[in-house]
């Protein structure tokens, strides 16, 4: 077994399933460098034709919000219904909005 210090860094993997769609986070993996991360992502996450493009980014480069701050960050939006564009009267002829 490799010791903790010798373990390869973790990478986050993003796959675009079709041209025109966005990349979505699909999971993570270990790799020693970016080339290996792309190859590993190809082998682990696109075996069943899941994608046409792969992004990888080393996990340490991702900055995340702290769950304990969820209240101040997200709750203030809860009572601002006017931010949803639902207060317009639309003409009958418009079908696809």
């Amino acid at each position, binding site marked *: 077994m490799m010791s903790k210090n010798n373990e*390869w860094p973790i990478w986050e993997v993003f796959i675009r399933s079709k041209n025109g769609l966005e990349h979505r986070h699909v999971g993570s*993996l*270990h*790799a*020693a460098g970016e*080339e*290996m991360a792309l*190859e*590993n992502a*190809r*082998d*682990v996450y696109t*075996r069943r034709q899941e994608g046409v493009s792969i992004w990888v980014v080393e996990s340490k480069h991702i900055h995340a919000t702290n769950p304990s701050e969820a209240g101040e960050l997200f709750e203030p939006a809860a009572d601002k219904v006017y931010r949803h564009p639902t207060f317009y009267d639309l003409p009958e002829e418009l079908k696809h909005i």
Partner: protein
Amino acid sequence: MNNSLYIYLLLLGDNSLILGHRLSELCGHGPNLETDIALTNHSLDLYGQVRSYYQYAAEVKGEGTEDSIAFLRNERQYYNVLLIEQPNSDFAHVICRQFLWDAYHLPLMRSLMKSKDDQISAIATKSEKEASYHLRFSSEWMRRLGDGTEESHAKLQAAFDHLYPYSFELFKETEIEKEMKENGIGANLSLIQTEWKKTTESVFEEANLKLPDTPPALTKGKQGIHTEAMGFILAELQYMQRAYPTMEW
């Protein structure tokens, strides 16, 4: 029946079968999860190619099936090169064996895409992309191990010393290969060798590998004369069909 074409298809298919088996032995035993899956994917790619070659071979022979060709021949009726049957001694051996073969397999497929035989050309066209990825994967690992730590380099050099002498057999033309080359069905191995040298020499250099000064190893695999490793492979590969003939699942 066209016996030369039948044997040529086995010469092509048997390498993929035995290498596919060797890689399948690593399923669940890879050095880490990602590499384990990668090598197993390679194995499945190879088995896919094997099925196409053997289905066509059965048709050419007019008897048997892909399964009987895969599982019911005796050792001397398999024509894979000796390089392919060498054991998975360690990860460096797995990568080195793969690289020496991938660097041959890709130009072989590119050449066979132009074969006068439509079936062979179709199989080569499908396999070419797989071979191309396999070569990319094994080349990366050759550089990584060879130019990595002192330990990884020493292990790769040891694998290289063992396996490199077997690579000469890939280019030693048999009567059947000569005949197939001349009628436009098979590949010209001396052209493949030129491509192989181009690909391998730059990787050997980047991986800091020193060419062993041992002479070329035995080269009788294509005539069905194998190393002791082959019997063990077939024992495992054929066990179920030999113990329970015609079993299905």
